[in-house]
């Protein structure tokens, strides 16, 4: 009887320069360094035929197979790629004779969203919101819910600047129980809904992503979750234009991602219009600040348009 094998940690520690060869497809990968580790496996940067790729390896064969299934289904979704592109799936037999499952995907080079926003300004908040809502809509249209939506699973890639999903481990078919989640982002943890996979589950986590950007240390739940979260949103200056939309999403008011995106778009346009009107009315009083705020919105919409065109 094979039991609790998955729980015994056979730490995989691959060294730079080491070669991993597949048991089934016989492709070889040279390890360059470690990118990160999660609940299920460790991700390494590697090269194959001189090109960079990301290799995820684990002794939890079952969980890896489930992840690969999700990645494969996502490759079939039309349009923009939702997750990283899957290059190979195979097993590796270590010199000690242990078998590990691994898969290789495209390497997405970028930086953390929080860092990016700190460096480049909160005008990007609106852009990233629209980009993410677009991608979430595409997930939902194809019958999936992203599930474990959190900062760790997002990366900002450059030219064009776009936020992308890097780990699809929590992706769940609509109507089922969410496969993987992180408490801070989970509406079940906050007592504000079930863990049934539906678009509104992702929209809740989406709001928590932007809360987390401005509260990097996060915070604990309390007796009145809704009030706590609303207060946290109200206290962030950069979120003020969006606060009503974010609150609506937390309480599950939007059935679809597209609906929420429409509201965010309205916010972006109306702030810009209001500000340019005000600017004309009282030119001398607050002009510099208003010009800046209006400009920020124009820049945000501009960046967003560029990112969807390319």
């Amino acid at each position: 009887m094979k039991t609790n094998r998955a729980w015994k940690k056979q730490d995989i520690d691959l060294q730079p320069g080491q070669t991993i060869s597949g048991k089934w497809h016989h492709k070889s990968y040279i390890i360059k360094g470690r990118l990160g580790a999660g609940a299920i496996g460790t991700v390494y940067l590697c090269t194959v035929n001189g090109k960079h790729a990301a290799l995820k390896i684990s002794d939890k064969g079952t969980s890896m197979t489930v992840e690969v299934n999700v990645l494969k289904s996502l490759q079939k979704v039309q349009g923009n790629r939702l997750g990283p592109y899957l290059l190979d799936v195979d097993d590796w037999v270590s010199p000690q004779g242990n078998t590990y499952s691994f898969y290789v995907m495209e390497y997405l080079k970028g930086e953390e969203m929080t860092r990016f926003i700190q460096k480049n300004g909160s005008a990007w908040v609106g852009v990233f919101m629209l980009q993410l809502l677009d991608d979430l809509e595409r997930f939902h249209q194809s019958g999936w819910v992203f599930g474990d939506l959190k900062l760790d699973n997002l990366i900002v890639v450059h030219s064009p600047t776009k936020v992308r999903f890097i780990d699809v481990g929590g992706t769940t078919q609509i109507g089922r129980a969410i496969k993987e989640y992180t408490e801070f982002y989970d509406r079940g943890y906050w007592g504000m809904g079930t863990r049934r996979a539906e678009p509104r589950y992702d929209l809740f986590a989406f709001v928590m992503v932007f809360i987390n950007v401005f509260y990097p240390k996060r915070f604990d739940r309390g007796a009145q979750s809704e009030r706590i979260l609303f207060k946290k949103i109200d206290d962030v200056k950069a979120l003020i234009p969006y606060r009503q939309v974010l609150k609506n999403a937390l309480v599950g008011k939007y059935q679809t991602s597209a609906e929420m995106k429409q509201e965010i778009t309205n916010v972006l346009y109306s702030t810009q219009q209001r500000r340019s009107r005000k600017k004309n009315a009282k030119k001398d009083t607050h002009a510099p600040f208003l010009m800046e705020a209006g400009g920020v919105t124009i820049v945000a919409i501009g960046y967003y348009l560029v990112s969807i065109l390319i």
Partner: protein
Amino acid sequence: MRKGTLKQILLLTDGCSNRGEDPSVTAALAYQQGITVNVIGILDDDQTEDSVELKEIEEIALSGGGVSQIVYSESLSQTVQMVTKQAMTQTLQGFVNKELKQILGSNHTLEDLDPEKRGEIMEVVEDLGEMSDLEVLVLVDTSASMHNKLQTVKESLIDLSISLNSRIGRNRFAIYSFPGKRKDIQKVFDWSPQLDAISTVFPKLTSGGITPTGPAIREAMYQFGKKSLLRSFRDEDKSGLEETGY
């Protein structure tokens, strides 16, 4: 179509058994009856893994066909869910492996298939895990040292119920504590589809010095055949039929 029902005992403890029969033996008995035994060992913040304790926990899960894990109480919630789900997958995978052996010969398991075929089979296992009905009997050690952990235990169980009730399949939970007053185990919460009502029953737990893990598992095993459980599932089936009749 009716899917099968998976039966699990989830043992939450913080120490070694010190009374009655060997818990590995009773866990093996339960497993023979089609009940998987999972064990979570809960550590205090200042405690380190004790090898004797660790070994007992592993042994129980091993002979009970289940999963074991040692955790600090702050990560109990996620562990309870991971262990339960992992054990479900493991049981279902066990069935699939048995079928594979019949088709492909005795040395073949899932790991011997190429990744593509394995992927297809795992899809079936996942579907089964989502659809199957599940019965979980939670067996809580309430010996003295567990006292300050019971609040966390309670929260984790409510959280487990939220997760499992987000599945398509139906669930039944019961909670028993051990040692009981004059018995090996004590009923805390009878079979029910939800655990949100436990907030009121939990403070009732009393603590004692002995830890009769073995006898407790044996008693827990008998609770699966009880009438209340059969009736609750049957009633639900009936009402389901009536609804579709309209």
